[in-house]
């Protein structure tokens, strides 16, 4: 049994598709790529997949993971997949693994939030503390655009996939509760492996 572990970016328009949409999207990619994947039994056969934990709608993923079960390993996978991937998915790297254990080995993610708005640092820190968070990195810079001043904020937070940690959407709510914001980018920049 062999699995292709695919490291890919999910970006741009595809930040807005749901996890179920993403699964359908990959199903069609591997069918188009014609790379000899294994299918499930039954009247609606599906490729055998396993995904890293779902991204919330609106989030990009800089390094997402996907295991595809193959009939046999082949070396041209990356090119074959990228050639037929829609705009918004790009494979950076593929390697082969004997076991598909994404469910257990991925324990968390590093999330980045970028927005425009006059965010009060003290209130933000207070909100994050109330969520029970300890590890974050916050920075802001002044932007001038056609004579209008904006404060561009960037926050990176480590969130583990275990009890006691909020979903990234909760962090979004905290930021919005402080004042009006214009979202620029939401992303998971790294998956943390055990």
């Amino acid at each position, binding site marked *: 049994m062999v699995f292709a572990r695919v490291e890919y970016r999910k970006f741009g328009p595809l930040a807005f598709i749901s996890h179920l*949409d993403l699964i359908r999207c990959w199903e069609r990619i591997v*069918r188009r790529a014609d790379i000899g994947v294994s299918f499930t039994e039954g*009247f609606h056969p599906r490729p055998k997949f396993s995904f890293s934990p779902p991204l919330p709608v*609106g989030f990009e993923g800089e390094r997402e993971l996907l295991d595809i079960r193959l009939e046999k390993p082949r070396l041209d996978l990356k090119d074959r997949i990228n050639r037929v*991937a*829609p705009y918004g998915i790009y494979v950076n790297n593929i390697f082969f693994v004997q076991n598909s254990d994404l469910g257990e080995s991925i324990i968390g993610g590093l999330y980045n939030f970028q927005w425009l708005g006059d965010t009060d640092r003290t209130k933000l820190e207070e909100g994050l503390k109330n969520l029970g968070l300890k590890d974050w990195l916050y920075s802001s810079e002044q932007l001038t655009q056609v004579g209008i001043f904006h404060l561009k904020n960037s926050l990176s937070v480590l969130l583990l996939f275990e009890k006691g940690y909020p979903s990234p959407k909760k962090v979004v709510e905290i930021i919005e509760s402080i004042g009006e914001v214009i*979202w620029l980018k939401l992303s998971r920049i790294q998956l943390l492996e055990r």
Partner: protein
Amino acid sequence: MNYPFDLLYRVKKPASYIGDEYNLVKKDPEGKVKVVLAFPDTYEVGMSNLGFSIIYHIINSREDALAERIFAPWVDMEELLRRRKIPLLTLESGKSINEFDILAFSISYELNYSNILTILDLCGLPLLSSERDGLPLVIAGGQCASRPAPIIPFIDCFAVGDGEELINEIIDTFKEWRLNSKDKNELLIALSKISGIYVPGISKTVKKRFIRDLDKAPYPTKPLVPNTEIIHDRAVVEIMRGCTRGCRFCEAGFLYRPVRERSLDNIKRLSSEILRSTGYGEVGFLSLSASDYSNLEGLARYIKEELIPSYVSVSIPSLRIDTLSREFYEAIGEVKRGLTFAPEAGTQRLRDVINKNITEEDIFKTMEIVSKEGWEAIKLYFMIGLPTEQDEDILGIANLLNDIKSRYKKIDLNVSVSLFVPKPHTPFQWTRQITQEEAEEKIRLLKSKLNRKINISWHDPKVSLLEGILTRGDIDVSRAIITAWRKGVRFDAWTDKFSWDIWKESFRENNIDISSYLKEKNLSDPLPWDFVDTGISKEFLWNEYQLSLSGFKREDCRKVGCYNCGVCSG
């Protein structure tokens, strides 16, 4: 992705507005005839419409033209666009309508009429054709173009019938006009000379266009692959257009005549090309009545021998249960969850009136197959409010279903009841539509007699009432559409958005007597769609109507010979 990230982040279904589907081609607009195809319902509905996909494909196959898409934004998106003063943008290039030459609506359902106004308004265009100077030219095709009276004031010209040839003729005419003129009226006059085009104020009548050979017609082999789930999320191959069963209530059955079949070789070629170019894991073989396809056995063999082994599943809507062998059902497997059957009426007498050629024996034969195969559920469709219907016909539905349930206790019966809406260009175009109160009374009667273990659902009679007014309405109705839209109606086809109160108020404010559209008509009464010639003579329809009242059945004309409806000779 053409809308700002922040905007999309705040709507419920952002994936409907991102575009960038696989197989999308972005074309350089320089020198081309630039068309926006608009669908007045959601992305998920519009992208499932085969006609829309065919026209998109034909225009983009031309070197001298391009087509981009817009859909009706859901109410949350509309509100945000208005608040931020952003116009509706095309999914391809993200441009607004003023960069285009033609805005072409595909309108297949009356309950989408209010969304036409939303789209025009969000594009920054006046709602009324008379208030729009110059471009874009606003055209409309689809089923509703065959009875366009209520939307005539909003549209510059209508394309009636199959669009495959018409769209090319429209673009050719536009190109020629653009070389010589800037006068929109000259464009409209030129367009009115095309057979199948109706230009209000210029054309007197219009004759439906149809293509004669499906195998020679263009078909999208590289359709767009949506990034989010749509209603019919699969590869689609149309195996047949039209139906000659002659069910007298069925609008599609009369509008899409004559029957044209696609050859099996063509079906195979299209299926494999589409599956390869899209990566879909399912193909749907589309028609109004799949059981009537002449080479169904060949199709079954293809499914079994080629599609199933390559991990592709199959769906065949409108397939009768009695026509095929067990093997075929095993091959498609679909049936277990999606089995449907439509007796439409509860007594043989009424089934004869509507010419639904199904007997009680057929129904029980079907149930026998269902039971033998061990299928768990079946969905049955009925209509109430059919011409000549009496209480005993309603009781007939209950008796029939109770009988089925008592014989097949293990099979789940899901029953869907809709209210009959008499449609233009059918033999029932003259009949009366029952009132809301009558409909509610009939549903009450049916429910009171029905075995409690049968699951029954029914359409809101008020929705059918509106549909009846909009489908048989005249040009006066357009004023009520504007009023209702200004008062906030949107997406009337969606039950959670439908508001009969606003519509009722809007009809009243415009002094429109809705009963005049719902009442019985005579042969001598002018009908608002009389100027549209579908190829089927009015005499034939009237004669069918009279035959129906005496319960006289007609067999399929492809089996027993021609009745001279007129469409094949026309």
